[in-house]
């Protein structure tokens, strides 16, 4: 670890901290329907959209109606994307490489993936998707799924803020306002900033460059024999990258235009673009903490939640940066210390231009925030560094989390925290003056149980099925377990990053990962909104001496502890058989190929 590395991490966090308040207050104004400086331009567009779609923006929805509208919208957009992928060969528009239709299993997996804000990619984008599919089928979902997540978080916040009401707002209005007032304006500016750094934005066919020196590439033929091929040219992929990259990061979607994602020089060319990408992942989730405080009338509570998220983020980046700075014990006779000409530590799978600090920081942020973009390959991290990325998702994607999803996930943890605090002092638990009853805790438990059931259930089946699960592995032993565990964890957490090393483009993985993504998104949203509906209907009791305060450091510490304990109790056995065992065996000189 170097001072330079820590300084860069400090600059990143300083930016997130500085942006949280203006961003949060702006979002609160947008969702409360208050005046903003964009109204003169956007209000006529908003009204036109409502008129065209027959929406009465004054109608309020109960939680069941809000949830049904969200499901209906997601179903329609999922099927639309599936159709676009299956018919991309028919749509000649923006398909200069003449890509064929996407294979059905992969198309379904991808449609589910982008609808659920996961952006798991079991394909090489620049060899599979036409520009039309990338823009109309996938980038649109980056906006929609992010706006849906934000709308759901706002619905939960309204549930806390409202008293004796049956409704949570109007889903269509929240979806529209989040897209028009927050995501679109930010993305226009952001995409231009990325172009200024060298991110490409065009509709050209791919370029072909002639190599100065022919290369010989060895691959395995259909008969299992090694085949050497002479290569004299290189294809350089192009496309409308900047416009997709902006929402990919800002909406915590993470699906790359290129297979190498943010490690590709056309997606993430400079140290400044790298900083912008990391900052934009936390921008909206960090701001939502302030939005929470503003809308529930307790700004200190919003900052207490922000503090809990920050503590968990720092613990992750500290561990990951430390682990990646360690020399690999199996490299004998290699100088792995930091020097003027060497970064030291584990540089496998990392871009030299980003180095260890920015790779560890990016990996921590992207797995904290349910983003899934990567600028280094997590499979090549040291076992404990890789474990941080896994454990971050295991916590439930609530360390700032996905846009909206992180906030509502953390608020379910807040419900659990005040419930446990109430049990500790023997009083009826209250959250901001609202009594938390058995139903709220039942729904919270349902929320928490769905997540591990799908991760551990499918991982167990995959591990025990040589023909289905383990045949896709590139490594055996504990690292192979980590690859499978990571895939299902990433899917259930709607993260989308891959540990790599696992060939997930098989019928088994495409199907089961899609089911896991659907469950990890929608089956968790339902109980979450049920809690919101329940809270909205409650009276607010005046605070008394026995009320557990949710705006101080004690609350932050308790919330952090509950998050860690729930995550550890659920996933520690699996982690101990994967990355922890691999770490111990690596120290003893054993590796697994």
């Amino acid at each position, binding site marked *: 670890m170097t001072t330079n590395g820590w300084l860069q991490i400090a600059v990143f966090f300083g930016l997130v901290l500085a942006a949280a308040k203006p961003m949060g207050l702006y979002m609160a104004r947008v969702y409360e329907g208050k005046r903003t400086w964009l109204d003169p331009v956007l209000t006529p567009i908003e009204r036109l959209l409502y008129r065209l779609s027959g929406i009465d923006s004054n109608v309020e929805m109960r939680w069941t*109606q809000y949830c049904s509208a969200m499901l209906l919208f997601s179903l329609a957009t999922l099927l639309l994307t599936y159709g676009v992928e299956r018919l991309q060969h028919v749509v000649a528009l923006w398909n200069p490489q003449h890509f064929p239709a996407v294979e059905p299993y992969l198309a*379904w997996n991808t449609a589910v993936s982008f609808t659920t804000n996961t952006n798991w990619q079991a394909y090489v984008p620049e060899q599979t998707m036409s520009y039309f599919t990338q823009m109309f089928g996938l980038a649109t979902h980056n906006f929609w799924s992010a706006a849906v997540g934000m709308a759901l978080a706002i619905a939960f916040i309204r549930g806390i803020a409202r008293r004796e009401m049956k409704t949570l707002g109007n889903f269509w209005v929240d979806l529209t306002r989040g897209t028009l007032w927050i995501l679109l304006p930010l993305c226009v500016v952001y995409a231009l900033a990325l172009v200024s750094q060298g991110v490409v934005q065009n509709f050209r066919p791919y370029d072909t460059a002639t190599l100065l020196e022919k290369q010989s590439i060895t691959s395995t033929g259909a008969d299992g024999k090694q085949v050497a091929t002479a290569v004299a040219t290189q294809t350089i992929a192009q496309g409308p990258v900047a416009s997709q990259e902006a929402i990919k990061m800002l909406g915590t979607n993470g699906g790359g235009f290129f297979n190498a994602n943010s490690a590709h020089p056309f997606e993430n060319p400079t140290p400044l673009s790298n900083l912008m990408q990391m900052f934009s992942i936390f921008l909206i989730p960090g701001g939502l903490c302030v939005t929470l405080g503003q809308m529930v009338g307790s700004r200190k509570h919003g900052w207490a939640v922000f503090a809990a998220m920050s503590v968990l983020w720092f613990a992750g980046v500290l561990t990951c940066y430390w682990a990646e700075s360690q020399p690999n014990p199996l490299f004998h006779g290699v100088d792995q210390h930091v020097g003027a000409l060497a970064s030291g530590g584990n540089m496998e799978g990392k871009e030299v231009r980003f180095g260890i600090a920015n790779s560890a920081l990016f990996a921590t942020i992207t797995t904290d925030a349910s983003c899934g973009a990567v600028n280094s390959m997590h499979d090549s991290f040291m076992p404990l560094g890789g474990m941080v990325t896994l454990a971050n998702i295991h916590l439930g994607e609530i360390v700032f989390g996905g846009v909206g999803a992180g906030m509502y996930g953390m608020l379910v943890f807040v419900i659990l925290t005040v419930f446990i605090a109430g049990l500790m002092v023997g009083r009826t638990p209250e959250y901001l003056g609202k009594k938390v009853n058995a139903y709220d805790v039942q729904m919270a438990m349902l929320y928490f149980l769905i997540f591990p059931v799908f991760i551990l259930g499918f991982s167990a089946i995959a591990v025990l099925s040589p023909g289905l699960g383990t045949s896709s592995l590139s490594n055996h032993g504990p690292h192979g377990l980590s690859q499978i565990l990571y895939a299902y964890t990433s899917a259930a957490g709607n993260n989308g990053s891959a540990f790599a090393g696992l060939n997930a483009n098989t019928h088994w993985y495409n199907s089961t990962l899609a089911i896991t993504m659907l469950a990890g998104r929608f089956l968790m949203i339902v109980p979450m909104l049920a809690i919101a509906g329940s809270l909205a209907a409650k009276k607010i009791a005046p605070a008394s001496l026995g009320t557990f305060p949710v705006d101080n450091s004690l609350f932050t510490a308790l919330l952090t502890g509950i998050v860690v304990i729930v995550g550890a109790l659920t996933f520690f056995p699996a982690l101990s058989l994967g990355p922890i065992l691999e770490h111990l065996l690596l120290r003893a000189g054993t590796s697994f190929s």
Partner: protein
Amino acid sequence: MIDLIFVTSTLAFFVIASAYIAGCERLRGGKPNA
């Protein structure tokens, strides 16, 4: 044919999710969309 299976599976999932909403609401003692 396989397209039909995926479309039907998707519809089935969302029907299950709708029933799940109704179940959660009934557990609270309310009626769905009442």
